[in-house]
């Protein structure tokens, strides 16, 4: 959200209003010049119009429609999928009572996946952006490798994890050999598998913002830290990490938000009992049970919960640069 706000600040609208704000009065420029300037500043508003219209049409209106649907009621004796407009707030209590576990689980899975992606993504970003600075070719190759998973489909990549974690697969074999997994232990259809899938699928969203941030890191500050008696670890903790917080914030949000609403990983890599995520519930409410109000209410709850969590998070860890 705050990211968007910053972009807007740099956009053509801000620029245009800045120019328009210039007082008239004794302007030495000719009327023609001023007219041209006005037209140009009005151009700014025209330029943001498509984006504005898009957001209105595909975000604001659907949200209101969703809100309305979530309050619909089912008239007695109605067919499957038949609802009437109403203000039935009980829908929220019903779905929360029934699915609070799935909701909490989704956030728990997303949190673990986000932390895992951070632990994997930060070192990768650091390696490419700082350690390999100046070695353009190597940097380019590694960046392509980071993005490469995007070149195959999401479903396919997730299916591949089934093979990797299969009972006869290499991971299980190794874990059994070192006794981290009992002889009859499995990884397929477990929470572990779902979190693996989430971590893997959203890793680039973590790595790239951190990379973009660390790429601009002035390494002379790291040298200054070392010069002032900070060990390499202390320098990282007191200089590098705080300076890269905007990247970490962006990365964690871009990972956590889609991960908590994801249902493909849980559907393909999980089971039917203890790995169900809220996305799956919404999906089945909408398209299988055809409970539009229930599905809408759940979607709305998910949205608000994410919003609340994000605000808390940004308040706690957010830096001035991001806000």
């Amino acid at each position, binding site marked *: 959200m705050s990211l968007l706000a910053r972009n807007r600040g740099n956009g053509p609208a801000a620029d245009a209003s800045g120019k328009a704000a210039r007082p008239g009065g004794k302007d030495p420029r000719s009327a023609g010049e001023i007219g041209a300037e006005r037209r140009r500043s009005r151009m700014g508003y025209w330029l943001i119009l498509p984006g504005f219209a898009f957001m209105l049409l595909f975000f604001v209106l659907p949200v209101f429609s969703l809100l309305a649907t979530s309050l619909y009621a089912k008239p007695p004796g109605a067919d499957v999928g038949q609802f009437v407009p109403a203000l039935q707030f009980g829908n929220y209590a019903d779905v929360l009572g029934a699915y609070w576990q799935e909701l909490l689980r989704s956030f728990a899975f997303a949190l673990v996946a986000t932390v895992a992606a951070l632990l994997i993504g930060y070192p990768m970003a650091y390696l490419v952006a700082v350690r390999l600075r100046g070695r353009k070719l190597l940097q380019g190759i590694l960046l392509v490798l980071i993005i490469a998973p995007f070149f195959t489909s999401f479903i396919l990549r997730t299916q591949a994890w089934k093979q990797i974690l299969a009972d006869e697969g290499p991971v299980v074999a190794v874990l059994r050999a070192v006794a981290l997994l009992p002889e009859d232990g499995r990884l397929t259809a477990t929470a572990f598998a779902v979190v693996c899938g989430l971590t893997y699928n959203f890793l680039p969203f973590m790595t790239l913002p951190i990379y973009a941030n660390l790429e601009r890191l*002035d390494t*002379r*500050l790291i*040298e*200054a*830290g*070392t*010069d*002032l*008696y*900070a*060990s*390499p670890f*202390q*320098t990282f903790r*007191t*200089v590098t990490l*705080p*300076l890269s917080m905007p990247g970490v914030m962006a990365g964690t949000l871009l990972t956590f938000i889609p991960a908590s609403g994801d249902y493909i990983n849980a559907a393909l890599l999980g089971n039917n009992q203890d790995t169900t995520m809220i996305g799956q519930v919404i999906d089945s409410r909408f398209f299988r049970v055809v409970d539009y109000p229930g599905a809408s209410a759940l979607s709305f709850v998910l949205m608000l919960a994410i919003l609340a969590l994000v605000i808390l998070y940004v308040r706690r860890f957010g*830096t001035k640069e991001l806000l």
Partner: protein
Amino acid sequence: MVQERLAEETTTAAGRDSGGADLVLDSVTKRFADFVAVDDLNLTIPAGSFFALLGPSGCGKTTTLRMVAGLEQPTSGTLSIGGRDITRTGAHERPVNTVFQNYALFPHMSVLDNVAFGLKRRKIRGAEARAKSALELVELGHLAARRPGQLSGGQQQRVALARAIVNRPAVLLLDEPLGALDMKLRRQMQVELKNIQLEVGLTFVHVTHDQEEAMTMADTVAVMNAGRVEQMGAPRELYELPRTAFVANFLGKSNLVPGEVIEDRGDAVVVNARGNRLTVLKERAAAHHGRVLVGIRPEKLKMMWPQDAAGDPDNMLHGRVADTSFTGVSTDYLVDVPGVGRLGVFSQNHGQQLARPGDEVVLCWDTAHAFGLDGREDSSAGAAEAAEAAAP
């Protein structure tokens, strides 16, 4: 008062930590691939001195400092402080602090936190209080809560200085610390920096390409060129008796007249420069026979009208004024001496009649002011570098 207290603490600390802690570089060489940035450097920097490393851009000054700080490993050679070999010691374990060329202040910390950074890493008690008094020392106590980005260049420079000084390192390294400041602030900071050094009594190694800066501030100046030290000594000594053409031209201006030694007078040699007899004292000459360069500074030349020039025809050159530039306090002349070349003359304004272009003049000087250099040297070495260094 605060300043006195800090100075006091510092003197005792320096006495304890770094008593007689000379910095010694022993045959230090640094290669980047095939390029030799620092070439077999030998330096001894006495504890408590203000030492300047002076040289044109690219001569290896920063690389030398970085090796002392531990940010760069020498390809060969050793470094030691107070007799302790620090060649393999990590940068964060060396009793050395740097004021970086671009200051490198931490943008995410307040000015006070920047200054307290080094003390906190070493878990020194009362870090904040000490940082505060260091900020007072550089007269920035009132800006402690600001971020570096909210300060002017001159203020940032002082914060960088306070951040380094507060740790009372055995050696303080300053890499062109005044380079980014405008001329006026620069001259002012030169005086302040020198005063602070006297006050805290630390060893300062100051890198600069500005010869005036090096001369006004340092006790000892080492003139560097292409990775080597050309000459080292007190500013006055370097100026009055340069030993190489590079030093003669880079540090102030010099007229270098080529000639051949034709006579040995015991304590002096006589040089024939296109028929002119020039005398150079042996103790002021780098070579005593064969081809030599006779050097004489523009302000040491006396310019006379031909009718006034009488007596000893030695150390006398006849020429014609080619150009004059009057600056008020003085006049700079360019005088063409047939067969010898164009010489610069700096003439103080005593109210005398000024020569005009085309006038016939005679140049003479006191033998004690001339110096002799090896005749195989390029007489213009260092002149272009000096002009570049002087450009803003």
